[in-house]
């Protein structure tokens, strides 16, 4: 097993781990954290793809590396927006949950399920 494959498996495990956290953890902030973990696992897969394709004196293929940089910045922007939403929700309701039954609102949000 070479280094690329090792980190690839690490990426796969992180994706699983992040997904688990995202699905099971009820707190929005922890969901956001899990999303970031999931994202970094995905980025590692890109890194492995790049490393595997090392050629012509380069340590890796620059194309997937550049894509990861783009994606990292996008993920940060997403995190910022999600956190701003969580904090605003806290201001409005005094709590931060995603489940609609605990919400103070009864009109629109409570109608599904």
């Amino acid at each position, binding site marked *: 097993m070479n280094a690329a494959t090792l980190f690839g498996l690490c990426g796969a495990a992180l*994706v699983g781990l992040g997904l688990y956290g*995202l699905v099971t953890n009820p707190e*929005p902030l922890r*969901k*956001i954290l899990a*999303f970031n973990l*999931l*994202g970094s696992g*995905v980025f590692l*897969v*890109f890194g*492995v*793809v790049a490393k*595997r*394709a090392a050629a012509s004196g380069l340590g890796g*293929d620059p*194309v*997937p590396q550049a*894509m990861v940089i*783009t*994606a990292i910045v*996008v*993920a940060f*922007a*997403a995190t910022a*927006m*999600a956190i701003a*939403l*969580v904090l*605003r*929700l806290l201001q*409005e*309701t005094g709590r931060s*949950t*995603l489940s*609609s039954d605990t*919400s*103070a*609102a009864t*009109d*629109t*949000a409570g*109608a*599904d*399920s």
Partner: protein
Amino acid sequence: MPDANLLPDATTTDGVFLVLAIVLPAAGVLLSFVLGGRYAERIALVLLPSGFILATIILVDVWQSGHRLVYIVGDWKPPLGIALRADGLSAAMMVVMAIVFCAVAIFAYADFGTRAGSAEARAPFAFWILLMAIWGAMNLIFLGGDLFTLYVALELLTFAAVPLVCLDGRAETLQAALRYLIFALLGSILYLVGTALLYGSYATLDIVLLSRQIRAEPATLVAAALMTIGLFAKTALFPLHLWLPPAHAGAPAAASAVLSAVVVKGSFFLVVRLWFDVMPGMLGGAGAQLFGALGAAAIIFGSVVALQQQRLKLLIAYSTVAQIGYLFLIFPLALDAASGQLQGSGALTGGIIQAISHATAKAAMFMAAGLIYAALGHDRIAELGGIARALPMTIFAFALGGVSLIGLPPSGGFLAKWILLEATVATGQWWWALVILAGGLFTSCYMFIVLSRAVAPSGAPLKLKTAVPKYQEAAALALALTSLLLGLVALGPIDIIEVGRPDSIMVGSR
């Protein structure tokens, strides 16, 4: 292996319009952001109609030439660079979406217009910029020829759509927006990991180049599965629809119209691109039946829940869940049993017509619901009595939209369902015909409930909270009429959608 001269990658004569379709919205967003205040609205009101003209030019070009338009960005050909391509599919979608955008802009002028001399306000500033951003993102989704560019487009769409949900800042809309954001982010990250795997196997993400090399091997199959799940989550296909109803029902009317009519179609379009263009032979019978089953479940579930709703906007939102289901019936119906390939004619045409007629009809219905809400101060279906007398044009628009959703002739919905039914007969899959017909029945039920309430006389004399501007009603009616008349394209060049389909090129070249 295709020979080199088959490579379609050279900028075609009118390719520059494709760049404009992306540069104009981007420039609009940036300029509005820096100029602020009334400029955001002015720029949007100039750019959105020019977007319609642009889309029409592209459509006419594609139609007349019979080929797709191509633009090679930066003069770097794929796989290293990025190509923009417009085929019949994208041109048709672009034009209809541009119509919806124009109507929404007119409609929204009443709610988000800024009076001369007043300071920059939050909601209008955000709304107009986000509207232009959605327009640009949709254009990029229709034209992008590279799976990673399409990822950026998906993110553009997410970041433009989520703030629209909670534009009025109520707690429940904030919650809906947060849930929407989490679903959307999960969707795009799953899509992204798929692109990573595909790049790892083929060292290109260009749709045309990929479609020539794609092989059914583990990495590709895992990539396709993850990308599809991600896109399903963003399209709100049952059972990943939970975010949609509160988000679409809670947003301001103009925003709901855009979200329901336009935004969910973006990720659906990518599902089509992925399976019909990148890997037409990969889905297989079982996969196609699964997609169809999810679609059928969405139709039945969405309709049944819509029937139980007490509030108009939620009813319309659940109806969106159901109508999205129809879009996924095309997969079992388009699968050619002999070759195992998804065919880019027949059912796909029906699906695209369903997408665009739903877009126009649903936008009209959300606008109408918004007007009813504004006039009554509520949207409880049980208390709609007398509204048809007070706002006849609005109710008429709502009813026409419903006609298209049910699928009565001559509406676009009728044409779409007719083509799909034809395909069920042609492929001998009668069970999908049952679903289509049952869906139409359910739709007529909930439309009947709403309309019968609306035309019922009110007990007390109806007092409207605000006067509804005529041009808002006209915008809704125009969209509803578009949806109604879309069925008439059956008399005209319906095969425009098939222009530039890769399978038709491949067939021609063999």
